[in-house]
């Protein structure tokens, strides 16, 4: 008979090994899924995970890794701060949309003026848009004890409707012959978030993501606030006795994650996406949740997880084109990864013992 025994200390070995094992398990079961869809499993996995990095056209795909990875890392870093403290911001998708709308709105307000100040103003507006959207669940939680999971999630649907209304109304391109969607910011130099080095995918969003990673690392490792976050997550009562103010922590964690999600939205709309449109949001806010967990809520882990998840997007696109693998299969694949991660995490805190259960 198998039974579980709690480890006196969480196993460091398993804390590091779990993500790797989860990825391997996902390869295996993902392969089974692809086989069930009538595709060659090995070829599918190779197409998704090898070709974008080392295949024939990898020079074309590698920049995509940064483009897709940056928003994921940026959002996931913010989410991880809250998750560590048991503050669950699930509405990053909405904050991402609002950041894009605020930022693009500022940029479009100045059209067609040219100034070096326009893009920085947009960045501030984007951060503010995401921050203010995250402040709604934060303030409601602090003032009324409302559940932040539900409120932040409801706000995603509200933000999506805002997005639709803006791309059909206020921000619609006046020269767009009535089609929904704003002017293309890529054709407006002062507002364009272009590659800093041509054709590398290295735009301001990637820089922001790097800064966020360093900021989070220092915060968690060195700063008092990072200590407060960790203690609150592990022992909320002890945290209160040691003088941590839970309300300030809620405002800080939700605010920071909202701001970073807003920035991700702004960099996306002014760069790779180019315009505000009804289908502008691509689910980065939700995928970032997986990234945060897969990265063990650790800044460095999140970078690795973000790149891996970006790879599934790019490889998924290739597999869609070459093998006719449906887009949804990648989504299932990502979900599976999270399942295996959560399940295998058992071994970090417990060990398996063989033998009969003792009668207590």
């Amino acid at each position, binding site marked *: 008979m198998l039974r*579980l*025994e*709690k480890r006196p200390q969480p196993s460091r070995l398993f804390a590091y090994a779990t993500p790797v094992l989860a990825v391997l398990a996902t390869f295996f079961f993902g392969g089974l899924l692809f086989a069930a869809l009538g595709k060659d499993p090995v070829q599918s996995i190779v197409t998704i995970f090898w070709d974008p990095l080392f295949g024939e056209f990898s020079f074309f795909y590698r920049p995509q890794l940064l483009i897709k990875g940056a928003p994921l890392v940026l959002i996931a870093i913010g989410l991880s701060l809250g998750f560590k403290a048991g503050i*669950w911001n*699930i509405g990053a998708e909405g904050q991402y949309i609002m950041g894009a709308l605020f930022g693009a709105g500022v940029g479009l307000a100045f059209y067609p003026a040219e100034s070096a100040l326009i893009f920085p103003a947009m960045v501030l507006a984007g951060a503010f848009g995401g921050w203010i959207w995250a402040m*709604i669940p934060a303030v*409601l939680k602090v003032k*009324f*004890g*409302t*559940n932040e*999971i*539900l*409120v932040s*999630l*409801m*706000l*995603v*649907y*509200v933000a999506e*409707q*805002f997005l*639709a*209304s803006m791309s*059909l*109304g206020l921000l619609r391109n006046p020269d767009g012959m009535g089609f929904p969607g704003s002017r293309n910011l890529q054709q407006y130099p002062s507002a364009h978030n272009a590659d800093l080095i041509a054709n590398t995918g290295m735009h301001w969003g990637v820089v922001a993501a790097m800064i966020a990673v360093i900021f989070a690392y220092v915060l968690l490792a060195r700063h008092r606030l990072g200590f407060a976050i960790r203690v609150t997550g592990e022992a909320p009562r002890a945290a209160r006795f040691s003088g941590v103010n839970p309300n300030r922590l809620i405002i800080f964690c939700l605010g920071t994650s909202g701001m970073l999600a807003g920035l991700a939205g702004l960099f996306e709309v002014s760069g790779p996406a180019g315009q505000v449109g009804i289908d502008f949001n691509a689910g980065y806010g*939700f995928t970032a*949740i*997986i990234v945060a*967990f897969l990265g063990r809520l650790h800044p460095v882990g999140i970078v690795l997880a973000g790149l891996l998840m970006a790879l599934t997007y790019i490889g998924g696109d290739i597999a869609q084109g070459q093998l006719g693998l*449906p*887009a*949804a*299969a*990648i*989504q*299932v*694949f*990502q*979900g*599976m990864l*999270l*399942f295996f991660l*959560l*399940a*295998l*995490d*058992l071994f970090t*805190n*417990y060990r398996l013992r063989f033998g009969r259960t003792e009668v207590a």
Partner: protein
Amino acid sequence: MDLSAINPILLIAALMSAATPILLAATGELVAERAGVLNLGVEGMMIVGAICGFAIAVETNSPVVGFVAAAIGGALLSLLFAFLTQVTLANQVASGLALTLFGLGLSALLGQGYVGIKPPRMPDVNFGFLGDIPIIGPILFSHDPILYVGIAVVAAVWATLKFTRMGLVLRAVGENHDAAHALGYKVVRIRTLAIMFGGACAGMGGAYISLIRVPQWTEGMTAGVGWIALALVVFASWKPWRVLLGAYLFGGITQLQLNLQGAGVAIPVEYLAMSPYVITIVVLVVLSADKSAAPGSLGRTFHASN
């Protein structure tokens, strides 16, 4: 704008139908939460139920078989959540989110061949002369059978929780799992069954959307109904009849905003469409003062060694 186009009797009849998916999903979640399990995967179980029900109904040409399949599909998916939270002791919030993300992907995958197909229609229940009674007839006796099943499930859950030994054990497990364990009740087994019941109800709620409310399949068609159902359980203070009340309230808002859209009110469509979500937030705020009714062990992981 022509508000006279809104017929109050038809509105009330339609709101009952609009409320049924929320009602089913929320009642199922209520049972899980009374057993002490917070399952945030309702949205995922609903959408999987929606496609399972739709696909099987189309293949067998029988909406009833479709609903049975939706319940089974939802329950099977919820088993994943049960495995994660009850066996591998994973965090319930994270596992629920994983279930939703996975469910959205899985449903899109399963539903590929079913876009643009019309499902078989579920005939309304024939109540004979009762349907001809003015006002009451169209409101109470002009619906599909699943709507009545939804109300029956609420009544059954209420009666079971209040009057039966099974209900007492379930509540005990939810209030204090350590005490229930000490008394010899199988906490994990009871919770797993409660989770599966929640999954089955959510699946049927999803199928109600794809087979009766919208009669078609589109990706992500549950569009947040599962989350509203979660909010509704809080709103209802974990009491079955208040779930019914709340579901009708939200059904009413949903239906009213659709009717206002149809009547061409001066408010843009997008702002009307966001109203159910905004009102959910407002209701959550108003009711958040009272948390006394929440089950004591809600969201806590149970392991016999602790």
